[in-house]
């Protein structure tokens, strides 16, 4: 029972960490001399490395908002999970936790989908999509599975 609990919490925390890293690290598109992410476009020109704020389009702001919301919902799900662990009746299901975690995964999915759809405009032909973008796509099924486990799980003892 304890192992199961630890495993579930580990999965949840892993999804949360992936979300966090993906949102903050500057590696959504990488090229020979520049890398950019949701927040900055950084480039190395003539040996100096400087960053400018990302283009103020509407869609990039939507992606920013969705990634931040997914982090917030995942954190709320973790807190609610620990609350429900101690207050739920025996045989009850962690519906609330599962709902929050599934919403978090949906937000990540929406953010990644928007970025993918807009990538012909945002990613120049000389650049490729970076690993932070891939992390976002990996975090989505992880969070979804975690949420589904919560919904199916029943509290024992």
């Amino acid at each position, binding site marked *: 029972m304890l192992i199961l609990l630890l495993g579930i919490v580990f999965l949840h925390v892993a999804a949360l960490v992936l979300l966090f890293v993906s949102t903050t690290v500057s590696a959504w598109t990488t090229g020979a001399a520049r890398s950019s992410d949701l927040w900055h476009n950084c480039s190395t020109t*003539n040996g100096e490395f400087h960053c400018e704020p990302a283009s103020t389009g509407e869609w990039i702001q939507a992606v920013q908002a969705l990634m931040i919301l997914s982090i917030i919902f995942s954190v709320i799900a973790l807190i609610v999970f620990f609350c429900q662990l101690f207050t739920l009746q025996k045989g009850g299901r962690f519906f609330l936790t599962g709902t929050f975690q599934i919403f978090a995964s949906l937000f990540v999915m929406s953010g990644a989908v928007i970025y993918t759809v807009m990538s012909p405009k945002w990613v120049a032909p000389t650049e490729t999509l970076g690993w932070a973008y891939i992390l976002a796509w990996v975090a989505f099924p992880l969070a979804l599975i975690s949420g589904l486990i919560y919904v199916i799980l029943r509290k024992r003892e």
Partner: protein
Amino acid sequence: MLTILALASIVLLGIVPQQSEAIVIYTGWERHALVGSDIRLSCSFFSWRWTSEDVTFSWSYRPDGARDSISIFHYTGGAPYVDNKGPFRDRLEFVGNPARRDGSILLKNLDYGDNGTFTCDAKNPPDIVGRASSVRLLVFEKVPIQAGVITGAIIGAVLGLLVLIVVIYYLMRFLVARRVFNLSVSKHGRKGKGKEGSQQRQASPLDVGSLTTTQRQQLTATAHKHRTTQVIDGHLTPPPP
């Protein structure tokens, strides 16, 4: 007001060590403008000294991607000198008021080639130690939405919706619980004498000990019916005492 402040600060300067003196220059951080429009780049400074007659303002411009900057405006000896050879000839005008510590310039008829960084440097002798301040100019076809507005709006809307749902949920629970109790109390009031009924209504909601056994059974039955609907929702709440 500013002169009184300056006077007081000069009196204090005898006590304050000299290193704290420095001129502080304020410009914007970033300016957005439409193609073909005019824009006023403001520059003002703060200095512990009186505004001297030899105050100087100078603006320089560094295009996006270039490494060097060129000087485009200089005010000294009480007279402004605008650019008459560089990229802003006939497009630059001095609209500042040096006596009020304002060294703003007006750029007319902007073009995409005017994207770049404008640096303002002001000196107020003998207060000449200070750092120049830069403002970035971005020229657009149409002015875009400020960075972060949509982000904040989406996050705020979703979180607000969440808070609203939680509040409504708890409100509904509170109202339904109160209606259950009021229903059972009014039933008791109708059956019993009038005075007793009104007395019962004033009792605290948790005071079920005063009810007869049949009424207590009715109360728990309605509460039980209420509880089964709650189980369908997926939430188990502890039974009322």
